[in-house]
């Protein structure tokens, strides 16, 4: 939110308040006048019907003015909250991308993927596996290796994610699905799926997946594979031991 926009908004609110204050003073003056007339034994008679109607109209205008100011304030607050949310999402994606490319050590890249899934997505039950027929585990967190038994890269959510080459997420656990995989993120580099991140569950307090979660899955899917590939090339060239 720019300073100019804030100062313009503050100026508009000040102007509306000033106008409201002046109207209230005018109404107060008229009421005092009426009371004075009544106190004098109604020498001048009751206020005319036309005068009462004008007062009612003025009061209606004031109410509408207040409602408009209230609506504008709410709209402004929503805009501020929206900008904060966007800033936060960008910060999260930037931090995740930075973490993935901060090292050329394979273990560090795997640790970065785990940090993202635990801290930014909110899961403590997941596996990072190679995209081979056995789905060989590269890292396990909160699940035993036996949890991978029976999983195949050809069927279920993993098979579909592999075929489509993009992350897939189930909004909720599917009854009767023995695999229990809720999210499958294929890690794709140079058009080839090299590994998968399989998420089996989320932290108990985490509600539904939000758009930022899907952005994170897409980022991990594209950037983690590149980072892992770079780390493997780096190790294969013997640079790590130089």
């Amino acid at each position: 939110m720019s300073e100019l926009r804030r100062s313009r908004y503050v100026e508009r609110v000040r102007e509306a308040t000033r106008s409201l204050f002046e109207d209230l003073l005018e109404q107060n003056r008229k009421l005092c006048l009426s009371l004075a007339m009544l106190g004098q034994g109604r020498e001048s008679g009751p206020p005319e019907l036309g005068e009462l109607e004008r007062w009612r109209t003025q009061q209606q205008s004031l109410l509408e003015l207040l409602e408009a100011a209230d609506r504008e304030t709410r709209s402004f607050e929503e805009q501020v909250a929206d900008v904060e949310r966007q800033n936060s999402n960008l910060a999260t994606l930037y931090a995740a991308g930075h973490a993935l490319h901060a090292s050329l050590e394979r273990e560090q890249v795997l640790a970065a993927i785990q940090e993202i899934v635990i801290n930014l997505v909110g899961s403590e039950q997941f596996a990072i596996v190679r995209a081979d027929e056995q789905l060989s585990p590269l890292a396990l967190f909160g699940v035993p290796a036996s949890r991978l038994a029976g999983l195949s890269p050809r069927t279920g959510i993993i098979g579909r994610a592999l075929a489509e080459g993009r992350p897939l997420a189930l909004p909720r656990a599917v009854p009767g699905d023995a695999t229990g995989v809720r999210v499958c993120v294929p890690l794709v580099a140079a058009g080839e799926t090299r590994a998968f991140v399989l998420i089996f569950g989320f932290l108990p307090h985490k509600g539904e997946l939000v758009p930022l979660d899907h952005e994170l899955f897409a980022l991990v899917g594209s950037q983690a594979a590149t980072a892992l590939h770079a780390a493997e090339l780096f190790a294969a060239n013997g640079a790590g031991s130089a």
Partner: protein
Amino acid sequence: MTRKILLVDDSATVLMMERMILAAERFEVLTANNGLEAQEKARREQPDLILMDIVMPKVTGLEACKALRADPTTSHIPIILVTTRGEPQTVEQGYEVGCNDYVTKPVNSSELLSKIRNILGATQ
């Protein structure tokens, strides 16, 4: 006046994310990677608020919170704990060692900023 916040987490990714969110709101941000470093920085820098992860190596967030409360030079500093677990038992432990509030991971920025503003507003 710029308010100073000390972020404590062993995850560089989380520290970077929290730093960016708070810096955008014009807070001055300091960081520490564990509970021990947090105690040292808190004594030296006297931040207006500490945002601290619970699960950390060396000294956990709960232990550090207890130590900060026992130290007269840091006992007044408000502490928000960050937990991956929102269960009542974890939350209760946090309050027992003297935290002012808590947030759960993954951190919701709106909730976090609201809690920080509430606490800093109340201590002004």
